[in-house]
C-alpha cells in the first residue's frame, strides 16, 4: 500500500454537511473533465470523504462552498479507498492468501459491502476489494444496530471518532470506549456487562454451540451385565447439519462414532467408567442417519488379551445404520 501511495500520490478530504448523492455528482463531474476523485467513505449523515489525486480533491473542495458544505483536508499519505490504490491489489491478495482466517462466531460486518459475514473464505476478497472501494461505514453501523440487533457499540482504540459518527447514525445506541490497555483488561468485561444490565444489549447467543451431538438427548434404555441399550434422538437443530450437507442434511459418520462414545460414557460397566477410546478398530456405515431419526445402540463390552473393547450396533426406524468396534484404554492399562 505504501508502494502504491508512492507510485500514485493522492490525498483525501472530508466534506461536512454533504450527502452522498451530492458528492457523487460532484466527483462524477470532476472525473468527466479528466480529474481523478471518488467517494471514499460514507461515514455518517453529513460526513462524506473523497479520495483522489491532489488536483482532483482540490477541485471538489473548491466547489464545496457553493453547494453548501465545507471541505476539510485530511492529513493522509495517499488516496485510500480509491482506484489509485489499484497497484497494491496483487501484493495484498498474495499476502492475504497466506494469512489464516477463521470462521466468525458472531457475524462480522464488512466495510466493503456493509453485510455480515461468518465464512472465513470471504475475507481475502473483501479486504482486497476494500483497497479501491468506498468504506460504507454508515450503512454498516445501521446493519449492526437495526438488522443484527446490537444495542451497545464498543470502540477500541484512542477514539472517540467512531463513536461520534455512530451517535449521528444511531442516536439511541449505547456506546462504550475502551482506550487504555490495562483499563481494557480490567474494565471491559465489567463495562460491557453493566451496559447489558442497563438494557443496552441483548445477551449473546451461542448460535453455533453446542457442537456435534452434545445437545441431542441421549437415554439409557437398559443395562444387563456388560451389555446396554442406549437411544439418542438426533436433533434436527444440530448446528452441523447446516454444513453437512447444505443440499441434504446427513449425520456425519464420525458423529455416529461419537454417539457410541457418549453411550459408552453413560452406560459403561463400573470397571470401565474412566475408559477412553484408543483405537477405532472398525466402523461400517450401512444406511444414512437423518435429522429427527431415533438411533438405538446395542452395546457390548468384552475383554481379551489386549484389553477392553466396546462393540455397538446402531439402528434407526428404517433398520441397521452402522456397526462400530472401539478399543479402550483404561487408566489401569496405562500404568
Amino acid at each position, binding site marked *: 500500500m505504501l508502494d502504491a501511495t508512492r507510485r500514485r500520490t493522492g490525498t483525501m478530504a472530508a466534506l461536512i454537511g454533504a450527502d452522498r448523492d451530492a458528492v457523487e455528482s460532484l466527483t462524477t463531474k470532476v472525473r468527466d473533465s479528466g480529474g481523478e476523485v471518488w467517494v471514499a467513505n460514507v461515514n455518517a449523515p453529513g460526513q462524506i470523504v473523497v479520495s483522489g489525486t491532489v488536483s482532483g480533491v482540490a477541485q471538489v473542495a473548491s466547489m464545496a462552498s457553493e453547494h453548501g458544505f465545507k471541505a476539510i483536508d485530511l492529513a493522509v499519505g495517499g488516496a485510500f479507498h480509491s482506484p489509485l490504490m489499484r497497484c497494491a491489489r496483487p501484493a495484498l491478495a498474495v499476502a492475504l492468501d497466506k494469512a489464516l482466517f477463521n*470462521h466468525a462466531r458472531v457475524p462480522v460486518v464488512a466495510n466493503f459491502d456493509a453485510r455480515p459475514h461468518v465464512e472465513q473464505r470471504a475475507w481475502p476478497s473483501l479486504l482486497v476489494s476494500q483497497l479501491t472501494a468506498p468504506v460504507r461505514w454508515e450503512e454498516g453501523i445501521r446493519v449492526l444496530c437495526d438488522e443484527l440487533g446490537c444495542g451497545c457499540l464498543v470502540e477500541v482504540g484512542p477514539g472517540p471518532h467512531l463513536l461520534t459518527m455512530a451517535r449521528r447514525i444511531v442516536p439511541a445506541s449505547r456506546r462504550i470506549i475502551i482506550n487504555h490497555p490495562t483499563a481494557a483488561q480490567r474494565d471491559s468485561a465489567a463495562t460491557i456487562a453493566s451496559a447489558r444490565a442497563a438494557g443496552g444489549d441483548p445477551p449473546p447467543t451461542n448460535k453455533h*454451540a*453446542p457442537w456435534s451431538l452434545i445437545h441431542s438427548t441421549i437415554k439409557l434404555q437398559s443395562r444387563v451385565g456388560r451389555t446396554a441399550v442406549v437411544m439418542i434422538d438426533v436433533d434436527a437443530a444440530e448446528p452441523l447439519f447446516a454444513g*453437512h450437507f447444505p443440499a441434504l442434511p446427513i449425520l*456425519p*459418520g*464420525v458423529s455416529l462414532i461419537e454417539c457410541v462414545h457418549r453411550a459408552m460414557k453413560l452406560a459403561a460397566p463400573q470397571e470401565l467408567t474412566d475408559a477412553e477410546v484408543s483405537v*477405532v478398530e*472398525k466402523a461400517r456405515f450401512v444406511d444414512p442417519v437423518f435429522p429427527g431419526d431415533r438411533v438405538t445402540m446395542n452395546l457390548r463390552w468384552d475383554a481379551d488379551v489386549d484389553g477392553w473393547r466396546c462393540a455397538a450396533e446402531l439402528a434407526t426406524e*428404517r433398520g441397521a445404520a452402522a456397526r462400530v468396534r472401539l478399543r479402550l484404554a483404561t487408566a489401569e492399562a496405562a500404568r
Partner: protein
Amino acid sequence: MTSAPTIERILPHRYPMLLIDRLVEFIAGEKLTAHRRVAGDEPWYESCDGPADRAYPPLLLLESWCQAAGLLAASEDEGGMSAQAMLLGAVTNVTFYGRVLPGDLVAHHVRLVRALGDVTVLEGDATVGNRLALSVGQVVIAIRPIGDLSSTASPLSGTTESSSSA
C-alpha cells in the same frame, strides 16, 4: 497447489463442517497433503465442560482427515460436488496419539489404495510438526448423487461398502 476455493468446489461440506484449510500437495489418483489449523475459538469449544481440556475432539480430527481423503477420492473433472454427497462407508484401525491443541497445524497425509467406481479406499496419517497425531489404517469413501439419498426413500440398496457420511 490448489487454493481454498477449489476445496469448496470439490467438497460438499460447509461451515461449520468444512474442516480443511489448504491443499499443499496433490497428485491426482495417488496422494495428497492438506492442512488444518486448529483454532481455539471454534464453536465446539464453547460446549466443553470446562477450560481444563482444550484438546481437539479426536473424532473431529478424523472427520478432518476424511475430508482430505475426500479431496483425493473426488475426481476433479466431475465439475463440482454440489449435487453429490460424500459418504463415509467404513473406517478400519484408526489410532489417536496424544492431544491436538488450539494453535496446532495439522498436516493430513492421504494415500489412495484403490478406486472401484464411486468407492475409494484410502490410508494415511495426520501429523503435528514431527509428531504423529492420528494413523488411519483404511477409510472407504463413497460418492453418491444426493438424489439417491433421502430420508423418505427405502433403505439404500447400495454396495456393502456404501453410505452414511464423511
